[in-house]
């Protein structure tokens, strides 16, 4: 199968646009440390909502649509959760001896590393989706890119919140988050070169990424939210959590409107 050069260039331009969006979290650099410390728990709550929303509203239903069998998708999600659990145990065993959820000075908590791995995997899947839709039709490629950008911006904000909580400096958090977002390009190139294999690998990659997000949100981030129990933190974090889910649900409507155009 020969692919038009404009399709390849379009897919690469779309991937770079998605990577560029991950730099939208740069605003964290201009905040004062005291303000940042106050904002981070709310960003973590937003991350929980966005990660769980992405898993349950986008990735799992998409995997079910592609695969057809709910039980197989659920099993793969569980394999993803299990895989990330083992991965975290390995990261802790290899690098970390701090079992507390507060980073010591200069130390990076496993939750930050896990978040980077999960985000890289998610962006790789995004690259497959972008290139796959550009192969089908450039207009579909454009709408898919817009939908991915729409869910990427709030997610990157939440991810940077999680990385800051994990012990990275604001500058490191933005940079590492951007490096992870670059996996969208290998995902697209993989699809353009091997479109048949890439399409079938989505049935496996989507639920595993969903499992990873559920694991990170439930085991690493939610315990962090329970550290502060005052009324302002209760109301603020609940609102941020709900807003994360709301963003993801809004994107479903947005995608439907784009497809209808």
């Amino acid at each position: 199968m020969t692919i038009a050069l404009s399709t390849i260039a379009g897919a690469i331009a779309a991937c770079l646009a998605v990577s560029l969006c991950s730099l939208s979290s740069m605003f964290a650099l201009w905040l004062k440390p005291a303000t940042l410390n106050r904002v981070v728990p709310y960003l973590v709550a937003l991350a929980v909502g966005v990660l769980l929303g992405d898993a349950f509203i986008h990735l799992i239903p998409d995997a079910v649509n592609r695969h057809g069998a709910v039980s197989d998708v659920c099993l793969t999600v569980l394999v993803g959760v299990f895989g990330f659990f083992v991965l975290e145990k390995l990261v802790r065993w290899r690098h970390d001896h701090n079992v507390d959820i507060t980073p010591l000075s200069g130390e990076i908590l496993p939750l930050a590393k896990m978040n980077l791995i999960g985000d890289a995997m998610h962006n790789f899947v995004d690259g497959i989706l972008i290139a796959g839709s550009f192969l089908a039709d450039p207009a579909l490629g454009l709408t898919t890119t817009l939908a991915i950008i729409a869910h990427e911006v709030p997610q990157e904000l939440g991810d940077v919140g999680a990385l800051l909580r994990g012990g990275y400096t604001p500058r490191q958090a933005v940079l590492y988050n951007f490096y992870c977002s670059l996996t969208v390009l290998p995902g697209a190139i993989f699809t353009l070169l091997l479109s048949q294999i890439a399409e079938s690998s989505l049935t496996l990659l989507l639920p595993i990424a969903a499992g990873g997000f559920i694991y990170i949100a439930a085991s690493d981030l939610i315990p962090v939210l329970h550290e502060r129990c005052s009324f302002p933190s209760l109301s603020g974090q609940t609102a941020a959590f709900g807003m994360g889910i709301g963003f993801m649900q809004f994107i479903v409507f947005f995608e439907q409107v784009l497809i209808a155009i």
Partner: protein
Amino acid sequence: MASIDSYLHLIGIELLVILAILGYLVEADLPKRVVSRLFLTVLGFMLAHLATHALPNQIAGFIYSSQHLYHSAKSPGLHRT
């Protein structure tokens, strides 16, 4: 569907923005130098393209816009001089 030229312009602009932001974020000397050189290379390519293709094409289009022969001689796909 957009032409390959439009996509390449878009890729160039995105690369410039990304490299400019990376140049600001990276603190170590060597990576900063590499990013700066990459930025200058991409900028050089884009300026060369502007000077040798985009600008002459615009000027020719402006000067000969009323000439029927110019329009019939232009290729329908790529609008290059």
